[in-house]
């Protein structure tokens, strides 16, 4: 969870200071996939923080993030979040719509590559951290 908040803060700063790209949304999607329902409160807080940094109406991003979280959790089984193809599809769709609405940006080749690279990196990070958590749990049960 600490890692999540560090990454979220980093994403918010990069997104609002340097580069108009929805890094925070991507992290939110990944955190919902990794943490499931436990991620709802951090997702809400991330939205409020992003609103504060981006000078938007407070609550707007948290509402959007919660809707995205609901979609992922609701269709968890149908979309098979274990399958990277479904996850990539969802990420590309969500990032594309968010970029268009908030940053008036269409997918360019560079942003497509960035989305793909970030998705792969974050999925890899999720798989590492979740395997570590499972390992710790196993130790505890033994």
């Amino acid at each position, binding site marked *: 969870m600490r890692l999540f908040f560090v990454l979220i803060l980093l994403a918010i700063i990069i997104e609002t*200071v340097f580069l108009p790209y929805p890094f925070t949304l991507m992290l939110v999607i990944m955190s919902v996939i990794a943490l499931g329902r436990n991620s709802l409160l951090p997702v809400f807080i991330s939205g409020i923080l992003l609103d504060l940094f981006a000078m938007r109406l407070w609550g707007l991003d948290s509402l959007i993030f919660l809707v995205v979280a*609901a979609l992922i959790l609701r269709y968890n089984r149908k979309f098979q979040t274990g399958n990277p193809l479904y996850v990539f599809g969802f990420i590309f769709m969500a990032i594309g719509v968010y970029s268009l609405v908030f940053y008036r*940006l269409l997918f360019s080749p560079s942003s497509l590559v960035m989305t793909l690279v970030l998705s792969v990196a974050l999925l890899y990070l999720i798989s590492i951290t979740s395997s570590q958590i499972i390992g710790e749990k196993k130790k505890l049960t033994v």
Partner: protein
Amino acid sequence: MKKNYFLLVLLSLLILSFDYLSVLNPLKIILEKPVMLVKKELYTRTVSIRLLPYLLVNFEKLENQAEKLEENRRALFELAATVDELKNENDSLRKQLGSPLPSDFQFIPATVIASARFLELDAGSEAGIKTGMAVLDGSFLVGRIRDVSAYRSQVVLLTDEDIKVPAITDRGTRGRVSGSFNKSIVFNEVLQKDPLFLDDLVSTSGEEGFPPDLIIGKISHIDSDDAAVYKQAAVVSLAETAVRKKVFVTTRI
């Protein structure tokens, strides 16, 4: 768990409506200062890093520019003497006419603290900035104030679709400048009969609250379809956006 979810959604909606009604402004004012400080520090300290890719891509162009600047510098030394002389003459004439102010525009200096879709400035309503004011960098138009809080303000850039600037070329052709997908500037709503050529200089016409004669850019490509009512052109900005640190917000007094 469902209960928690709906509670959070309800809380978001409540916060959203409270903020819409400006109820949260006192809290926002308290939190804005540290946020602004963090953004300002990060933005100003990383200028050299952000400049690196720009320098690498435009190395040859910058080298030529440096040579031209050196020539201009020499010419400026000669001009400086003449300007001093004219300034003294101008001051004495102003005194005679009883108008000490050089223009009817008020300039508010501001530092850029972030540059994502919008440019963010470290000055807000406390400094006298209001929505709709024009933002300049020297004699170049940067954009228009979109949103203002107590200590921060957001600027819509010329590359944004949300901006519309009445503009005129050096040949007297009128039209409107707007952005396209945060990448390019378009000069549109130009009548088919009006002359438009490559390298024409586009500047503000002085309407809709924008000061006149501020440079927007040069025509780089003309898109003309005889069947259409208007023709349009792509404009390339002449301002150095990568190194922008300080700008001026201006309004007519």
